[in-house]
């Protein structure tokens, strides 16, 4: 479930790559993916942990020497992508010695510092800070001030909209999207798909699934090469799921598996399309769990249904 929720989230991916060294393994001896060295540390530090005993252990953050456990992130936080991101961010603030910018990030910050009127330098520095969950808004604001009608400014507005969305500051997010659109007249910078996805997030949060689907369908059709296609398709599936159009949800989720198998939403789609046979509450589907127990054959059966729906509907989704 973790790989389908938090580990599939772009800003979690960015933060882990920017500030952590991450290790993933199976802690049970004799199983695929077991690592004796890791188990000696991890299993020992969790031997009294109830979730570990139940087979759903926390994420543990260790000091760089790998000896001292600094923080444990329990499963109820792990499965919520926003809480998980914030827990990782907070751990960095609690341990600033391990939160220093990487060399490339330092270069970008220095370049912005050296060129106060360079919109590009400030945008790039802002991106680097945002990836590390560090303050970035001021750098984006400077990018906008330096060249208010440029693509840098338009994209800085977009980034600020996304940051506002993460803070659930929906009105601020909408104002930023309007500012981005004002600079992007005629979609000259090709980011109508980003704007649609951001607006759809608000509709989904408000459980206005039909309106969200309308935005997502239009963006999928208008921007077939969108780098956010996995996200557009995943949430089109979510909207259909809550509109009781499960076959169309399956269609969108399987489309991702079939057409962009390396997109970071693949696992999220894969977990969602077996939701009916899954006993774990899916955080991406408002905690939906379709079964009291789960077997491998139930999961395989659910995948077969999804595949069949995809095959039946794929030629009916007009481009």
């Amino acid at each position, binding site marked *: 479930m973790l790989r389908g929720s938090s580990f599939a989230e772009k800003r979690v991916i*960015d933060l882990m790559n920017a500030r952590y060294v991450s290790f993933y*393994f199976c802690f049970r001896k004799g199983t695929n993916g*077991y690592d004796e060295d*890791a188990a000696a540390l991890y299993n020992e530090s969790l031997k009294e942990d109830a979730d570990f005993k139940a087979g759903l252990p926390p994420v543990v953050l*260790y000091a760089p020497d790998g000896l001292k456990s600094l923080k444990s992130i329990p499963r109820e936080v792990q499965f919520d992508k926003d809480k998980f991101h914030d827990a990782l961010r907070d751990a960095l603030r609690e341990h600033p010695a391990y939160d220093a910018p990487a060399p490339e990030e330092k270069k970008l910050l220095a370049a912005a510092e050296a060129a106060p009127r360079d919109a590009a330098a400030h945008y790039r520095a802002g991106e680097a800070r945002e990836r590390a969950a560090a303050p970035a808004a001021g750098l984006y604001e400077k990018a906008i001030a330096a060249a208010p009608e440029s693509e840098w400014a338009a994209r800085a507005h977009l980034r600020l909209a996304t940051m506002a969305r993460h803070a659930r500051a929906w009105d601020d997010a909408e104002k930023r999207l309007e500012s981005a659109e004002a600079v992007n007249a005629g979609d000259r910078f090709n980011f109508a798909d980003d704007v649609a996805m951001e607006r759809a997030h608000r509709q989904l949060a408000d459980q206005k699934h039909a309106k969200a689907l309308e935005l997502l369908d239009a963006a999928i059709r208008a921007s077939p090469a969108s780098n956010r296609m996995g996200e557009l398709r995943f949430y089109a599936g979510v909207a259909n799921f809550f509109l009781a159009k499960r076959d169309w949800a399956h269609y969108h989720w399987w489309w991702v598996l079939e057409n962009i198998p390396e997109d970071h939403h693949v696992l999220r789609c894969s977990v969602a399309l077996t939701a009916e046979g899954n006993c774990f509450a899916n955080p991406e589907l408002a905690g939906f769990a379709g079964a009291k127990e789960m077997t491998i054959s139930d999961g395989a059966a659910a995948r077969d249904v999804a595949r069949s729906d995809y095959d039946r509907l794929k030629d009916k989704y007009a481009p």
Partner: protein
Amino acid sequence: MRSSFLAATLLAFAAPQEPAGPGDKSRIDFFYAGRFKEAKKRAAEQNRMLLVKGVSVILDEEAARDVKRGTC
């Protein structure tokens, strides 16, 4: 962002660069089983916290493939 090879080439140094679509191949740079010592060494070299996630069984195909490949 819609990708356009020509536009991307012409604007390579003049405009923000987004990953080419469709989709986004962003991945966590995990170290997998068999490489824990290497992960510890990397964390020490970079002075980064070592994030460890253990699972009781590796069910999904992608994780199994990643573990087998041992990539990070």
